[in-house]
């Protein structure tokens, strides 16, 4: 793990520049290439959805108000992006230590068909225990995604299906205001400062 970190840091210059360029491109294209998507995520207080967490308890956006919030969209059948992001999030939470206890940290499943609360619970037991899995009826997941201006799409693949989905990590202040996004290919060194900003 330590070696990998060193490798990542070593690649930081190039990757950082690339991520920055990609990030810029993404922000620009939000306003031009994707009509209807050129909007920032709503404040948490203006979102509307009824989901269930991996312990089977109901969760609504209002439950998040009062604590800073970090949200990622994914699914447990995802082989690459989701375990990678959940590993990253677990590392960030470990680095932040007890301070991170003040965060709401949620994985919202874009594959509620397969990701029941039980399935999410088993999957998330492999990562930091502070990450809460959310799932529910598809229309409710769609309402959640709409609030974040996130997208997901089911794709048939080899007799099965996979999901395309927004891969960034969304950050919100304790009062629910949108703060920033940690882009999937962004230099990971920028992640902790972004998270610390919503903790202050």
């Amino acid at each position, binding site marked *: 793990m330590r070696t990998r970190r060193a490798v990542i840091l070593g690649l930081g210059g190039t990757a950082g520049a690339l991520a920055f360029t990609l990030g810029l491109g993404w922000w620009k*294209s939000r306003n031009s290439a994707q009509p209807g998507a050129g909007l920032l995520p709503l404040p948490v207080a203006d979102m509307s959805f009824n989901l269930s967490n991996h312990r089977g308890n109901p969760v609504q956006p209002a439950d998040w108000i009062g604590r800073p919030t970090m949200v990622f969209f994914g699914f447990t059948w995802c082989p690459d992006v989701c375990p990678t992001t959940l590993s990253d999030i677990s590392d960030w939470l470990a680095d932040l230590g007890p301070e991170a206890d003040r965060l709401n940290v949620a994985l919202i499943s874009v594959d509620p068909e397969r990701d029941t609360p039980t399935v999410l619970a088993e999957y998330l037991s492999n990562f930091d225990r502070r990450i809460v899995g959310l799932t529910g009826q598809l229309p409710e997941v769609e309402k959640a995604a709409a609030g974040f201006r996130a997208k997901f799409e089911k794709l048939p693949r080899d007799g099965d299906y996979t999901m395309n*989905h927004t891969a960034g990590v969304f950050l919100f202040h304790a009062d629910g205001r949108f703060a920033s996004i940690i882009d999937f290919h962004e230099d990971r060194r920028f992640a902790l400062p972004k998270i610390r900003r919503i903790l202050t």
Partner: protein
Amino acid sequence: MLSTLLTLTAPAAFACEIFTVGDLSVEHAWSRATIGADRPGVFYVEVTNAGTTDDALIGIATPAAGMPMLHETVVTNGIASMPHAMSIPVPAGQSVKLAPGGYHGMLTGLTTALNEGDSFPVTLTFEKAGEVTVNVEVLSLRAEGPDCEHAGQ
């Protein structure tokens, strides 16, 4: 000091073995544990081309999965997708990584769940160098890569 000794005396993990075929060396072959056999597994590896001729990884095969395929994670407008990669270039004098968030092998139709500590063979087919079979080490679902002493790339 103790950790140094342990590193020196412990047998190298599977993922740290280096396999060669022609001018290519293949190392850091690893995978993540899966929950059950229904979910796809993943395959990561690093290929270094010490020769003067460009090559390409054009396929993978393994008894561990019915449908192993090369994929690439692509993020467009913030949205991640995983198109098939028909061929992954391994240019002369360069290293190419199949690593989290980029190129990877997707192991669909797992024969059995992949458990941490298991290993399984994967045969890589290169356009010019031909085939080489490597041992793939299964790390935890949370792993981000093997910890190899020689991994100073």
